[in-house]
């Protein structure tokens, strides 16, 4: 087990910087998820940890030991690849035994460990098969088995469940999380799926265009996004953004929009710290409540554009003067398109971002 530290890490391909000045400290035993869209540098980051890419600048440390110049085989990490990377000419047993064999362990011990790992993963009956005879989910378990037969300092998982079907993926999320907690090994898990990161990780590092946007627990990243990009990327359905004017009436600061004017709470007004002009208001679909009758409190008025029933929830798209926003509500909602509706905002759960930089005020 190891603590992993990125210290001012850069990855450059020619003039293009894939990873820019990355600083992350991942304590021993942590499940760290690196989250971002494709091309954000997350895979480059992982490959630098594995030793498959040269570290252009900065250092990566395992337990305060610099590992920049170690060959992959000397880093003592185990990696699970997106396409599983099983050896097609070897049986499942040989695939799983490979890391032990390469480290010169004796046959009896290899057999014990592979059998144990296979038992844990419930693939004991597949040991004689070859990878092409396995289903996607089985291949993925073999790949994980190959990683856990050894006791590496660190697990590196590169989108390991991206190719599974939705049901199996949901199942594997729980299983991988359970496995990591059980083994207690530090894990770096790369994914583009915010749901995976949210549901599994202790710490999420959100990356965009090579830069670390935010590092924090899933709760922090979801509830306190540091900028509009993180706020928009994390959460499904995505956060709604509306451009609002800041207006001051008496000593109360309000967000004004053609469809509404809502007062900020005092501490939120404090966060704006004298800003004037426009801000981007962000509010998640689940922080809005929709009703067809006008409630007493100040509300957003709009009209129903379309409704999407998702089974247990309903998403209502509401047309405002200059935008459409999505609201999550109960499936009993009965509005039809074109009807006027009223939205109330949970003002503990809304956000304001700088229109230019996207930085979050609160």
């Amino acid at each position, binding site marked *: *087990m190891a603590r992993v530290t990125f210290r001012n890490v850069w990855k450059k391909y020619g003039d293009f910087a894939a990873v820019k000045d990355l600083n992350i400290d991942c304590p021993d035993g942590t499940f760290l998820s690196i989250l971002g869209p494709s091309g954000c540098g997350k895979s480059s980051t992982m490959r630098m940890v594995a030793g498959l890419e040269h570290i252009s600048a900065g250092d990566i440390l395992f337990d305060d030991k610099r590992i920049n110049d170690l060959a992959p085989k000397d880093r003592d990490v185990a990696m699970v690849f997106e396409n599983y990377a099983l050896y097609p000419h070897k049986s499942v047993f040989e695939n799983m035994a490979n890391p032990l064999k390469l480290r010169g362990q004796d046959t009896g011990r290899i057999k014990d460990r592979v059998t144990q790992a296979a038992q844990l993963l419930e693939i004991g009956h597949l040991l004689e098969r070859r990878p092409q005879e396995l289903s996607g989910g089985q291949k993925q378990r073999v790949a994980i088995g*190959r990683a856990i037969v050894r006791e590496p300092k660190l697990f590196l998982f590169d989108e390991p469940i991206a190719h599974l079907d939705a049901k199996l993926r949901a199942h594997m999320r729980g299983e991988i999380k359970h496995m990591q907690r059980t083994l207690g090994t530090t894990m770096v898990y790369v994914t583009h799926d915010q749901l995976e990161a949210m549901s599994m990780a202790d710490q999420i590092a959100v990356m965009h265009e090579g830069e670390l946007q935010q590092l924090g627990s899933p709760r922090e990243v979801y509830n306190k996004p540091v900028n509009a990009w993180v706020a928009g990327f994390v959460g499904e359905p995505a956060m709604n953004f509306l451009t609002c004017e800041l207006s001051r009436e008496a000593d109360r600061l309000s967000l004004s929009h053609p469809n509404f004017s809502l007062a900020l709470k005092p501490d939120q007004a404090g966060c704006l710290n004298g800003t004037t002009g426009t801000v981007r208001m962000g509010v998640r679909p689940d922080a809005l409540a929709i009703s067809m009758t006008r409630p007493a409190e100040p509300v957003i008025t709009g009209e129903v554009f379309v409704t999407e029933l998702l089974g247990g929830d309903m998403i209502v798209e509401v047309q405002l003067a200059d935008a459409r926003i999505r609201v999550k509500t109960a499936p009993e909602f009965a509005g039809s398109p074109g009807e006027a509706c009223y939205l109330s905002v949970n003002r503990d759960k809304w956000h304001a971002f700088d229109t230019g930089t996207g930085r979050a005020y609160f």
Partner: protein
Amino acid sequence: MTDITLSPENSLRHGESLFRVRQLQDNVEARPAPSRIAEPARLNPLPSKAYFFWLMAPAIILLACISIYPFFWMIYMSLHEVDIGSATWNNFENFTKLFTDTRYLKGWALLFQYSLMCLALQIGIGVFLAVVLNGARFEKVLVTALLMPMMMAPIVAGLVWYFLYNGTFGWYHWLFQSLGLLDAKSILASPNTAMLGIVLVDVWQWTPLITLITLAGLKRVPQDQLEANMVDGASPLRNFFSVTLPNLYPVLLIAVMLRFMDNFRFIDSALVLTGGGPGNATKILPIYLFEVSFKFFKLGRGAAIALTLLVVTIILGMILVKVFDRQQTRKI
């Protein structure tokens, strides 16, 4: 980390697994009710067999003219004493005599010797060159340059090497003799070196083909398998033998198949270089066949030899295809 990780007693409740597959499958595979949809009363007709036959007829007729007819004519000839204008049945004598024909039997031995030497050298050198060239700077230019021998007509290659080997003015002859590797006799004139002489020409001309095929194969070796093996703890050399080479087997098998069949057929350069000599030291079977048929004009016996050569080629080819199929089914 200590041993507790993988011991179920310590880390997990007994009997619990990390991945509860079977339960999951039970969940997923809830069976739908049996179907109640009736079969359609009438199926749309398929095109008739005659239709497919006529589609293929032109190709079959052409093939029959240029290949099947001569093939059966060869079988006919192999069973007869053939002279210009006449053919007499001779009770399989063409075949029975082969078993006592020492030059025929030696021809086989020499052919296998020749073919195996060519294949071993070509595969060895070809793969080595491909690995060196793969991803090298100027790869395309170098590969193009390397391909040049292949573009040459085999007979021309044979002639060029004939002059290079020549005992009077041959450059190689001079070089090897100066190095003390050769006595006064020229390379092709000595029974000890003549075989090597014709093997070298084949290797020179056809190694580039192996390199080309291997290079294509190398581009297909999955990068993630190489990387997984590196992370698993393999050195580059180990990585080559345990990941790259197994992934190359299918293309190498194709290369072996192509080349061994060529060796069994192409005798242009060997014919120009030694014509089977000195003595019978390089009289591989196809050369002997050529002599019997077209020098001594024993067409019946020639046909019999050709038939045995064909049968052995087909059997060896089928064995390779079988091995190849087994390799293919291993691919994901």
